[in-house]
């Protein structure tokens, strides 16, 4: 899954935690104190019991002294435990936040290629759940592991001090505890893995059917879908049953070991007590150690899996945090650019095995309108990706007003392009805030004016809270065409010197499109504009037409030139007309 070795991840994790050095030390000290104080209680209890021999044989002075000690230890435990919990919380939550913030921040500079090629859900789950699992698993796991080991060692120490012979009985039982813990955790792990796999399969089936429910109904496929689902569901139940069952025998198993140790200690202790080798109080202390002795063992075995899981999550997050970013080392500005654009011997491909753009040369004069034409999926957006530097070219140069775009500050480059894309996107915010994205200083009047020009005003007005209606990311109740109108309005509010319109009106019906044509014309006037469109009327008027096929620019020229050339464009043009 990742290339980092465990030791390297561990090193990285430790360096992450350096900033929390003081808190970690404090947490460890508190943990040590808590363990020590907790283990002290059985000893004190035992001593107290020894003061209560029989009717009339009570050593009150000693008893009260011991009870005072106990109270002091209990109160002290309260504080050490409480501080430890607080400190651990603080470390966990802040580490998580810091990781999330940095991963998100990195995402803002990540290469678009990375975002395009990677399932978004995966990024989201890294930022949301991996960060949690990491912090919980690692820090809590660490505490549990640490206190577990200390508890075991401490218990043995105290037991040996009371009676090394009985202690030996307990220690001999240790391997049984370990074996049992191993047996159970291996099975649990195996079945949980299998369960996760089947669950994943079932979930994607559910998603598929829900998403295509309409088709399912049209085909009267409901019963088959349910049958398929039931098969998966049965498989899942079978594995889930095993996983749940095995994980739930951890506690009874531990209890059994504890109880056996308890019985053994009872016998040996009582025998020794008869011969005076141990007091009744000593036996009492022993018995309470015996009941808690096995618990840390299976905690520790659980922690190891959790720990590895946490490391895997950490690796995924680090991978994100350490990922390469967009190259942004230009510092020149093209504010107020004239819009002379030149592609000079440009080479580009999305992946190395598949050549795409080779030796592309285009010259565009300021204010020209460039139409990019070609079949769907032919790669018309590639040119836009290169211009905006969403992807960087492999070889050659792209010049704007004679400046290589690599020398231009990235934000500056992009802010000089106005962009309306086919795949519309709105923020989960009010209509007004969405429109203000392009120009945060826009006044309400300017916004309304722009919306009127794009004929968006009338439907915005009809929305429940007008311009203050909150939109969901997918636009909610708005139609695709209305969303496109909003995106166009957005650009209207701050029109940069160059424009990119990628099927900007594809979902807007022909008549509305005509109505907003004047707004469009005003927007494009004097600005270098790239238009991706399929309507002949739009294309015909362009100064330059780039015909794209299979990602390559196969023809360029204006309408008349290309018709004369009698190539792809001419063929497309005729075929659209022949249908008449």
């Amino acid at each position, binding site marked *: 899954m990742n290339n980092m070795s465990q030791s390297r991840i561990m090193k990285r994790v430790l360096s992450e935690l350096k900033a929390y050095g003081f808190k970690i030390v404090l947490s460890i000290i508190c943990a040590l104190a808590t363990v020590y104080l907790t283990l002290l209680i059985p000893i004190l209890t035992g001593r107290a019991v020894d003061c209560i021999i029989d009717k009339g044989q*009570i050593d009150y002075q000693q008893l009260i002294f011991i009870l005072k000690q106990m109270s002091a230890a209990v109160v002290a435990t309260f504080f050490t435990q409480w501080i430890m919990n607080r400190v651990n919380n603080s470390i966990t*939550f802040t580490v998580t936040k810091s990781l999330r913030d940095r991963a998100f921040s990195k995402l803002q500079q990540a290469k678009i290629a990375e975002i395009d090629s990677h399932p978004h859900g995966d990024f989201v789950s890294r930022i*949301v759940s991996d960060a949690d699992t990491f912090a919980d698993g690692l820090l809590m796991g660490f505490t549990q592991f640490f206190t577990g080991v200390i508890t075991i060692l401490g218990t043995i120490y105290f037991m040996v001090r009371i009676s090394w012979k009985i202690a030996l009985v307990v220690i001999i039982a240790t391997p049984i505890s370990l074996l049992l813990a191993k047996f159970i955790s291996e099975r649990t792990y195996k079945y949980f893995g299998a369960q996760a796999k089947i669950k994943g399969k079932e979930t994607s089936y559910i998603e598929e059917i829900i998403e295509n429910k*309409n088709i399912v109904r049209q*085909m009267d496929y409901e019963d088959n879908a349910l049958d398929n689902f039931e098969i998966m569901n049965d498989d899942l139940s079978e594995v889930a049953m095993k996983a749940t069952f095995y994980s739930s025998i951890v506690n009874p198993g531990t209890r059994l070991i504890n109880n056996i140790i*308890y019985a053994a200690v*009872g016998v040996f202790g009582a025998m020794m007590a008869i011969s005076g080798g141990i007091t009744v109080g000593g036996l009492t202390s022993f018995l309470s150690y015996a009941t808690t002795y096995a618990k840390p063992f299976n905690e520790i075995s659980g922690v190891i899996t959790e720990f590895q899981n946490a490391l895997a999550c950490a690796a995924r997050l680090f991978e994100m945090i350490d990922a390469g970013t967009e190259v942004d080392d230009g510092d020149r500005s093209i504010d107020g650019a004239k819009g002379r654009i030149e592609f000079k011997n440009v080479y580009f491909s999305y992946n190395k095995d598949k050549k795409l753009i080779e030796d592309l040369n285009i010259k565009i004069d300021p204010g020209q309108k460039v139409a990019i034409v070609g079949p769907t999926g032919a790669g018309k957006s590639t040119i836009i990706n290169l211009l905006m530097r969403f992807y960087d070219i492999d070889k050659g140069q792209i010049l704007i007003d004679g400046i290589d775009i690599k020398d231009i500050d990235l934000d500056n480059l992009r802010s000089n392009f106005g962009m309306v894309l086919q795949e519309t996107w709105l923020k989960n915010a009010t209509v007004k805030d969405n429109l203000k994205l392009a120009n945060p200083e826009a006044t309400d009047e300017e916004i309304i004016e722009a919306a009127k020009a794009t004929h968006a005003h009338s439907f915005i007005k009809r929305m429940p809270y007008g311009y203050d209606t909150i939109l969901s990311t997918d636009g909610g109740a708005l139609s*695709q065409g209305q969303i496109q109108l909003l995106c166009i309005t957005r650009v209207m509010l701050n029109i940069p010197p160059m424009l990119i319109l990628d099927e900007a009106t594809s979902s807007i019906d*022909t008549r509305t499109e005509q109505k907003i044509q004047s707004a469009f014309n005003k927007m494009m006037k004097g600005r270098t504009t790239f238009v991706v469109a399929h309507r002949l009327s739009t294309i015909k008027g362009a100064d330059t037409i780039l015909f794209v096929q299979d990602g390559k620019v196969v023809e360029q020229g204006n309408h008349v030139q290309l018709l004369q050339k009698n190539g792809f464009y001419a063929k497309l043009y005729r075929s659209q007309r022949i249908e008449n």
Partner: protein
Amino acid sequence: MSFIIHYVKQYKLRAFLAPLFKMLEAIFELLVPLVMASIINKGIKSADTHFIIRMSGVLLFLAIAGLLFSITAQYFSAYVAVYSAADIRRDIFEKILSLSQGTKDKIGDEVLTTRITSDVNQIQNGINMVLRLFLRSPFIVVGATIMAFVIDVKSALIFIAAVIVLSLIVFIIMKYTLPRYKTIAARLEKVLHATSENLEGARVLRAFCQVDEEKEAFENKTNNLVQMQLHTGKVSALLNPVTYVVVNIGVVVLIYMASGRVNDGHILQGDVVALVNYMGQILVELIKLANLIVILMKAFPSADRVREIMSMKSDERCQDKLPINSTAIDGAKGSISLKNVSFSYTGGNEMDIENISLDIPAGSTLGIIGGTGSGKSTIIKLLNHTFDATSGVVEIDGQDVRKLTDSYLAYTFGIVPQRASLFSGTIRSNMTMKDVEPSDDEIKTALNIAQALDFVEEKGGLEAEVTAKGSNFSGGQRQRLTIARALIGKPRVLVLDDSSSALDLATEARLKKALEALPWKPTMIIVSQRASSLLSADQIMVLEDGRCVGLGTHKHLLESCPTYSEIYYCQYPREEALGE
């Protein structure tokens, strides 16, 4: 709640046995301190080694019997939980399949998926825990108290006090933290949404140079989250230390009180040890109970959400179907008529389809054209009864569509949706979704007509794998496969809903030809935004805002319908159209 009980009831016996066995185990556990007390009181005091050995045998017996009972109980509760959850999952899935398109759209796909996956998981967890602990923990708390009473009434009063104080503390802390956990979950959700929204909008956000604003907004969200986590953590960090203090101070008081009772000769030394043990058991169980409540608090809202889905009305369309024999498939011809059909998505007064009347003779071709949101796709959904007309009647071969069964409609209609979507499986499984059992030849013929046979054979024929959403095929290939799918079973009515958008022109032309030559001459309904695709239709319906503003042949409409001529000339400027 009651709805979960309904499911658990299916496994009545096991659901009854699980807690019962847990209680039996608890009884064994409660007996242990008594046995130990007798070892101390009798065995050690009177140096009776036989008695000690016998008693340790009893301890071993208790341990093993406890294990057997508890493993059985764990098995039963895992069984009930896993299988009840599976039943719930199955029923929700069935419910989802039965929901009408309108209801499904209202709830949203993601929500439905969450209900059936993670919400059901929470419920499963909840059931399991309740069966295992809900009786056991209180039983041990009460049982330990009763045992204390058996040993010594006066000392046992401390137990009552301790239990009350502990319950109160757990209650107060839970009451404070539980609602805050909900807030934390909600804030985490916001972080999640922010991340996925940001990824979706990566291009737009960068084009508008919103990186810093996005980072700031995200950090605000993680900050809110951390504040709440720390705030809640302050209180929840108290739970363990406080309960620990209460129990151990209880022990101190208990020992002091008991010493008096021993002094008076009411109880023996061993009884003191037993009392201390019971106190310890109470602590362990109360902490378990607190954890159980946390799990339940997560399961309850999940149960509510699932119940909400389950209680939704299944398809509200008319259920009064004609018997199958009167709608024999063979008799179907494929004539359709709409009589004053109106439809409103919201059920309000504003109609999305308004008063449309239309006759489509069997075997004829109808073209539907209109702008975005004019109701083209809605009409299709009324024809095959995806939606119920608000008023008016849709008839297929003279039968009211509301009375036709879904399977009859599935046979009658072959629908190619706008968005091509395939299901994971094989080409064959996709082609045999309808219950018509086509032969291989039939499938191949359909693939051939849809211009899909070549690439299917290239991919390995009918058994070629189709991944989820058909993502291993290109957009154009997917579209052709959905066309082939619609042709299987020779439907009397073939509906093409703007379904050749991803095809290149040559393929589209071949497809068109093949469809026109279909040997069984189905009624064809072609929805398009492009006038050119509809020129040869027997009649064309022009839609605008849900109203039919023109109906007739291309020629007729060009002269009589201004909307149509506007659309047409807008796509094919007058001089070109006339220039032919």
